């Protein structure tokens, strides 16, 4: 190429390059916006459909064949029961397992095997846990759990979230510097004192964040609970752990599969309630992370 031709083509090339640059930026922006747009669209559709049905009686009525009388009381209370129990079980077992793996277990084949299993279990579809829960808790331990009860459901959901809780807690424990443990041991602390006074408090915000996020996942689970036997026509509030129950996602599923348009709108209203509750729990997780995360710095 001669110098002249380079000079001639230069403005065209430059324009082309600028256009490619510009369109790539637009493409990336569109990709970003698409998720936001879809989210806003979905929210708008749900609010549009369901907001009209939101009322105090919607929260305090049981489900009904008459849409104007139907409410989500049993589902809401059932969900809260379930999440409360799941939180207790998964924190006790999950944090315990994480502390054992990080602070006690020696790095031998056993620990590696357990670790590998936990990682794999985190990826198992939740419906599989539902089948396990049906066999183990509903049928096998029915004398303890009372069959298709809140307790069975909570234990099943505990299985679902446990791997995630363990992994999140392990990461939080690992983030606590070794020097803190050394300092504690050098001051003649036992392992228990070291874990209790220094490691757990320092790891707590991270652990709580993990627990809350995995619980909010459990909050929206329907599949394993359908198998375990939560059903939608429950017209009472569970009064104990061995009572039958239903939960919000199942109520939503049941209503949306009915032919009448009113029930679909009711489902949308229930989804709104579910979303608000999820937002609250996620907000709590963020709050905890900021509130306690700032105090602990090395």
């Amino acid at each position: 190429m001669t110098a002249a031709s380079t000079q001639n083509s230069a403005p065209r090339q430059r324009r082309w390059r600028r256009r490619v640059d510009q369109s790539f930026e637009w493409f990336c922006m569109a990709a970003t916006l698409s998720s936001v747009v879809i989210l806003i669209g979905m929210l708008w559709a749900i609010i549009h459909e369901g907001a009209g049905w939101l009322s105090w009686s919607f929260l305090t009525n049981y489900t009904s064949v008459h849409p104007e009388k139907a409410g989500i009381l049993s589902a809401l209370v059932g969900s809260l029961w379930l999440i409360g129990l799941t939180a207790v079980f998964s924190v006790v077992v999950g944090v315990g397992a994480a502390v054992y793996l990080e602070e006690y277990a020696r790095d031998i084949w056993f620990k590696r095997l357990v670790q590998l299993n936990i990682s794999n279990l985190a990826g198992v579809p939740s419906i599989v846990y539902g089948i396990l829960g049906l066999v183990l808790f509903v049928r096998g331990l029915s004398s303890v759990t009372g069959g298709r009860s809140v307790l069975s459901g909570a234990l099943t959901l505990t299985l679902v979230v446990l791997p995630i809780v363990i992994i999140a807690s392990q990461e939080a424990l690992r983030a606590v510097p070794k020097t803190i443990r050394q300092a504690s041991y050098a001051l003649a602390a036992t392992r228990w004192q070291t874990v209790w006074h220094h490691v757990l408090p320092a790891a707590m915000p991270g652990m709580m964040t993990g627990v809350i996020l995995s619980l909010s996942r459990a909050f929206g689970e329907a599949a394993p609970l359908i198998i375990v036997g939560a059903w939608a026509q429950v017209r009472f509030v569970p009064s104990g752990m061995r009572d039958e129950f239903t939960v919000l996602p199942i109520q939503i599923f049941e209503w949306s599969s009915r032919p009448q348009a009113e029930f679909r709108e009711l489902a949308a209203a229930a989804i709104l309630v579910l979303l608000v509750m999820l937002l609250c729990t996620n907000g709590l997780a963020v709050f905890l992370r900021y509130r306690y995360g700032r105090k602990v710095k090395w």
Partner: protein
Amino acid sequence: MVIETSDSTTGRSSVGHTAGDDQSGDPVARVPVTPDTDDGGRSERPEVASPSLAAVVTARADSTAPTDDDVKIDIEGLNVYYGATLALSDVHLQVPSGQVTALIGPSGCGKSTLLRSINRMNDLIEGARVTGGVRLGGVDVYDRRTDVVLLRKRIGMVFQKSNPFPKSIFENVAFGPRIAGVRGREQLSQIVERSLTRAALWDEVKDRLHHSALQLSGGQQQRLCIARALANDPEVLLMDEPASALDPASTARIEDLIFELRGQYTIVIVTHNMQQAARVSDRTAFFYQGLLVESGPTVEMFTCPSQQRTEDYITGRFG
């Protein structure tokens, strides 16, 4: 290394070399050694102004007060393995009571390993294995029946990087006594005040005992760690390069503190800084590649070492 820029006699330039070579051997020690060697501004110990090791040692030789020859720590044929690697081989060393013993040597020579095997911190390292004997005042440290918690209560430890708990100053110092069973608020307060006073930190922090320890400066944090160790009322204080991450002024304070604490406590200090060893220690042990090459009174070690390798290291021919 720019240590003697102003006036350099032959003796002093060789000293500067020592510190420089020591430094290049260990990146960890790089930062602190530089300022540490030219602390001419310290008026309370004029001999420091002249950084000749021999001069430093002989100048303060008379202050080698406690010549109580009770053996506090008796190390007999100690071997430490990390997995298949032999980190320390057949070490025989006697640490006299109430004196400051400095462990010197190039990086990876096993001096920190020796320190950790005295209070069994090696137990925490996976794959570490110890054979041979360490006795603390007649108690076999590695005996099956020895309670490691009681042992560590008798032996305080200060680490290279200050590691205060992310709690208040008070809680940091009170932790040791608290877990040992001291409950009364009044009693804990007394212990905290006494320990902070001994660590020369009380006046600086007495008005903010309940503030976070992490707000303290690096030097203050390290003195807090010393106070925390003293709160357990130990007999022995192990220090693993306690000043290597500190600025010259803070280093000077730590060294002064070590000087003051000797007599009351048996102190074993690992240091990369030859000047520091010469300034604070009564006895020095030189390690090289997992072997104890030579040990003896600091004065002799720095003026007329019996081993060629010791002399080479001290004068900076390797390191």
